Structures are given as structure tokens and as C-alpha cells.
């Protein structure tokens, strides 16, 4: 696994995705949720893998220790660097762009130490 710490030490959330999600709206909306909360992030295309692995690797590489993994069937995992691979923070199949945006918000809120957005009330 390569360390893609191109931006030096600037603190960022990392999103690792498989190539089929390269231009997906879903991933873009995860990014929007993080952007609205004011935390920097970067998306990387990785070799085929399950989202749990992707999220875990993203979290290890992220200087903030927060990572997301997205792969087939809109399965998204939110992970923190110190948790075990099998027990991530969130493991969810996303149903909409709004949900993706909330997932992004929650990733950023982990960094900010704020309560998560609930997935219950949908627009």
C-alpha cells in the first residue's frame, strides 16, 4: 500500500474509492458534506477492494486519522485510524446523494468533535 501523502502534513480526510466510482455523484456528495463542515479532504482511486479495507487504509494514511471507503453497490465505510478493521465507525449502504452528504458531514464532525447528523430525517 503506497503512502500518498503528497500534500505533506496538511491535515485532511482521505476518501479511497475504486475506479468505478471515479466520477460518481455519490462520492462528490460525500465531499460536499466534508466541504460544508470546513475540513480539507482528498479522494484517491485505489485497486479493487472492499470498502472496509479501503476505509481502513484511508484512515491510516490520513493525517487526521479519518478515512472513508466507497465501493460497489454504494457501500460506504467511515473509519478512524485507531479502530480495528472489523469495527469501523459507520458501515452503510447509501440510498441517496443526501445520505452521502450526511456521511461526509459526519466524517468531518468526528474531526471537530461534534455530534453526528442523523440519517433519519430525509429531505
Amino acid at each position, binding site marked *: 500500500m503506497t503512502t500518498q501523502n503528497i500534500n505533506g502534513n496538511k491535515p485532511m480526510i482521505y476518501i479511497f474509492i475504486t475506479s468505478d466510482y471515479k466520477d460518481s455523484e455519490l462520492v462528490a456528495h460525500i465531499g460536499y458534506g466534508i466541504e*460544508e463542515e470546513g475540513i480539507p479532504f482528498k479522494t484517491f482511486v485505489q485497486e479493487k477492494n472492499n470498502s472496509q479495507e479501503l476505509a481502513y487504509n484511508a484512515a491510516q494514511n490520513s493525517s487526521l486519522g479519518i478515512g472513508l471507503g466507497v465501493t460497489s453497490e454504494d457501500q460506504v465505510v467511515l473509519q478512524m485510524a*485507531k479502530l480495528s478493521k472489523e469495527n*469501523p465507525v*459507520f458501515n452503510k449502504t447509501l440510498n441517496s446523494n443526501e445520505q452521502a452528504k450526511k456521511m461526509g458531514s459526519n466524517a468531518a464532525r*468526528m474531526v471537530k468533535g*461534534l455530534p453526528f447528523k442523523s440519517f433519519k430525517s430525509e429531505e
Partner: protein
Amino acid sequence: MEIIVGVDIGNATTEVAIGKIEAEQEFNFIAEGEHQTTGLKGTEENIKGIMNALQQAVQEADLKLEDLDLIRLNEATPVIGDVAMETITETIITESTMIGHNPSTPGGVGLGVGKTVMITELDSCSAGEEVIVVIPAEIDFAIAAENINEGLARGIEVNGAIVQKDDAVLIANRIDKQMPIVDEVKFIDKVPLDRKAAVEVASSGGTIQELTNPYGIATVFDLDADETKHIVPVARSLIGNHSAVVIRTPQGDIEEKRIPAGKIIAFGESGKEKIAVDQGAEEIMKSIEKVQPLKDVKGESGTNVSGMLERVRSKMKQVTGQNLSDIKIKDILAVDTFVPQEVKGGLAGEHSLENAVGLAAMVETSQLPMQQIADALVQELPEVEIEIAGVEANMAISGALTTPGTDKPIVILDMGGGSTDAAVLTQEGNIHTAHLSGAGNMVSMIIETELGLEDFDLAERIKKTPLAKVESMFNIRHEDGTVHFYDEPLAPQLFSKVVSLDEGELVPIPTDHSMKRIRQVRRDAKKDVFVRNAVRALKRTIPTGNIRDIGFVVMVGGSALDFEIPELISNELSNYGVVAGRGNIRGMMGPRNAVATGLVLSYLNNPRWN
């Protein structure tokens, strides 16, 4: 007689003390037992709890139930207390004149003024017009930003935006001009259009300065002196906000109105007083004082308060079988508190802390229902002599005096769940008692209300244990600032939460309140109830009414176990030169077992030798 047992049936807990006469003049306490009181105190259901507590005690003493010689029951005068909460104010915004919900991620910075225009209507604006765009959820933020840029390019002075979704930063990052943007405005359709509006967002970490100043709003809307007077409540309500919107709707207003909450009538020896609950706790207590000593209290039907007053009466009827009309409410404690409520007419789900009154009431009776319990016990334990012994207050004093360092003149403060009971033993050896409403249950009710918990058990937990904040997956920070690290990661759902520490277990508190706020609410509730009642109790039991005329105050009962309450009370009483602290019955039991211990000791003062 050799094995003497004291049994104290409390409202919440049944306690047992076993003493053994080793030889003439030689006596030892050999075991204790404790169990939750089963059923209402004073009813036959109590037997179950008594038997449980006895079993515990005999086991500890390595005895059997048949070995007991004498069981002495407290001559308990039932005291039943209850609490109710009444909200007495509401906040109403009229004509959608302001937005003050203070979203966590507004966009841009500064003060922007213009006419409110739906973003879809931006086309119809001309160059030079000053506008505030309104952006409903249907409009994608990227499209919205494009539209704003097009408008700016055409020369329209777009000076700010009001957005329905959580999109302010996204939009701010994509437009060509810096402007303040307030988002998460749930009821965007209620934003008045075609009106002058001001949007303000403070710089990072700061508070808005213009819209919280009546003259700032006057400048923005060119108000005259009278219109400026009218706008003061709006400005004041926004103090402390990081962002806000004010819209020029001349009749628009934010008002705090009193909610009629019925009256209570306090009957005293000398007359009666009628007081509206919405006048607040201070007025209620003043009225009560005027008619002391209280003979009864009635409420106006249909209110929470009257419902509660009738509830205590029914519970007592259950215990004693008396007529409801013969059951009198002898004490009231009112406490001013707050309850978070949604503001009426708000555009974004704004919340406000409304005034509420917490009321505790108490009934007592001189009836003695203990005989039926004694009879039932005789059935259970035919080989043991059962008797109803002395007055509860005397037993409490006797037990409390086994606390090292105590002496008369002394006041025992028994702080339970439903009532606070006090007994004084004067220098001359006289005993006076008083029962007051307001105790552990009221504290928990206030905590539950002020934090908007809707969960009494959680409130009890918050009351009893210190707080901590989960800072990372491996550490928590206690309310005293110290840090505790764990070897194994904590559950993800605990992350960032304020937790209650329950014997090493972390119980998350499902609100957005900061740890500092929850701590403040917890301590204030304890002060408002128990420090208040400690002083009231002392003034009522001490014959001179002067607290300086006693030397010692001993706190017993479940609420005396609290980690903060005894200190809060001793702090208050330090001004009066009294020694005050948590009891330590027999130098080892802490604040528990006072009456049970007293029951055994009082036999020894008057033994019957076989």
C-alpha cells in the same frame, strides 16, 4: 432476649440492623441489611422487602431467621411527596421577522442588506438593485452559485443569501463575491419576499455586532426612534449569535408571553392566599409564607399542578384509607427552572429556554398503619416477637448520634426521594420535627426538564455520577479536567459524547448540551432543592428559628449519599457557625441505617430481660 433487630421501612428503602447482647452491659451490632421497599410504605406489600432485608442481615450474621428474638418496627408516620412541572412562558415570532437559530456552518462573513428575492426571480432584477437571495432546497447549490454569479455579472448587487439546506459554505466557496450566508432555514417558504432584510455572519469564533444593536438595525433599515424602540426585543434575542437574519416587517416582533398555568390556593391558620402559578416560584413561596403554618393547598383543575396535588392525596388514601377530604397538603416547594421549547413562528426550528415552575407537594398523616404490617410479620415469623417501637424522629436522632463528633443540640436532616424530614434535639432534650416537600425526585425532575431529556432514569443517573467527555476512541476527559486512557477502543457511538460514569460504565447522554452545562444544571438543581430545604427545615424545627442555636447538623438518607449535596449544604450553613456533614452511623454505615440503629439502641435503654 439476645438478638434484637431494628427494621426501618422508608419510602424507597427498607433497612435492617441486628444487635446482639453478649452479656449484661455488653452489646454489639453484628449485621445490617437493605432492600428496596416493596409497595407503598405503610401497606402490607412492604413485607416482601422486609423479609429480603432480614435475610441479607441474618446471612451476614451467620444466623437463621428463627434465631431472632425481637423485631422492632419504626412507628412510621407516612409522608408522601410528589412533583410536577409547569411551563409558564412561550416565545413567539410574528411576521417571520427574524431568523436566529445560529446554524453551525454559515458561509461568508460580514453584514449584507438588500431586498429578499427568490433566486429563481433573480432574472427580473435590474443592475444596481441590492438583493438578498432566498434559496430553497429544490435548487442545487452549484446551480445557485452559478445564478448568483450571473446576477453579479449583470450588475445586480447580491449582498447575502438565505438558504434552506446546509449549503452555505458550498455556495460561498463558489461565488465571485464575499457575502454573508445563513443556512439550515427549515421553513424557507415562510421567508417574506420583496422585503428589506439584513444578513450578518461574524468572523470565526466571534458574535454578531450589528443586528444585536438596536441602532445597528436602525441604521440598516433607516428606522426612526419609535420603530427602533419596537425592534429592541429582536436585537436582544440575537445576542451571542454567530449569525442572524432580520427582515423588515414593521409589525413583526419577538415576544415572550406568559402562559396561564392556573392558580393554587394556600390555606393557612390565619387565612388563605390565591396565587397564579405563572407568577413564578418566588411569588408562590412568598404567598405560602404569608399563611404559614399551611393547613392545605388546592389547585385549579386541569393543570399539571392540580393533577399532582390530587395524586398525592390519592396515594395517601391508598395507604390509610382516609377520606380524600381529610387528607391535607402540608408543605409546598416551588423552584424556578427552564425548559427548552421550540419558538412559535420560527423560520428555522429555533429553540428558546422558557420559564417553568417545578412544584413539590407533600401530605402527611397522624394515622399509624404499621399495625397491619406488624400483624403480617407475626404470620411470617411466628417464633419472633414483633413490636412497633418509638417515634421515627426519636429513632433517627438516636441513630444519628452514633456518628463520631456529634452532640446536642443537633438537627437530623433525612433527605430521601419524596420528602425532606428534619428532627431537632435541643440542649434541653426536647424533640421537634418537620416534613418538607422537595427532595431527590424533585432534583431529578429539574435535571430532566432543563436538559430536555424526557427520561427520568437518565436524569437520576446524571444526578448521581460525575461527567466525562469522550475525546477520542481511547480516552475520556473527566469534568475535573483529568484524562483517563483505555487499553481497548471505546464504542464508536460514544465518540464526542458527554457521558455519565456509572461504576466504570460510560453511559452516553443523548443531548447536544456541553459537559459544562450539564454539570451546571446538575449542581443548580441540587442547590435549589436541598440547600433551600436545609435552611427551611432548620428554621422550622429549631424552636428559636435561629440556626445559630444548634451546634450540629447530620445528613442522612439516600440523597445524603450524593457526592455533592452534603458539601453544598455545609457551604451554606458555614455562615451560621454550625458543624454540618454527612452522617456516619456507628462510625461505619455512612448516612444509612440511622432509624434501624436507633430502634435497637432504644431497646437497650429499656431492656426486658427474660
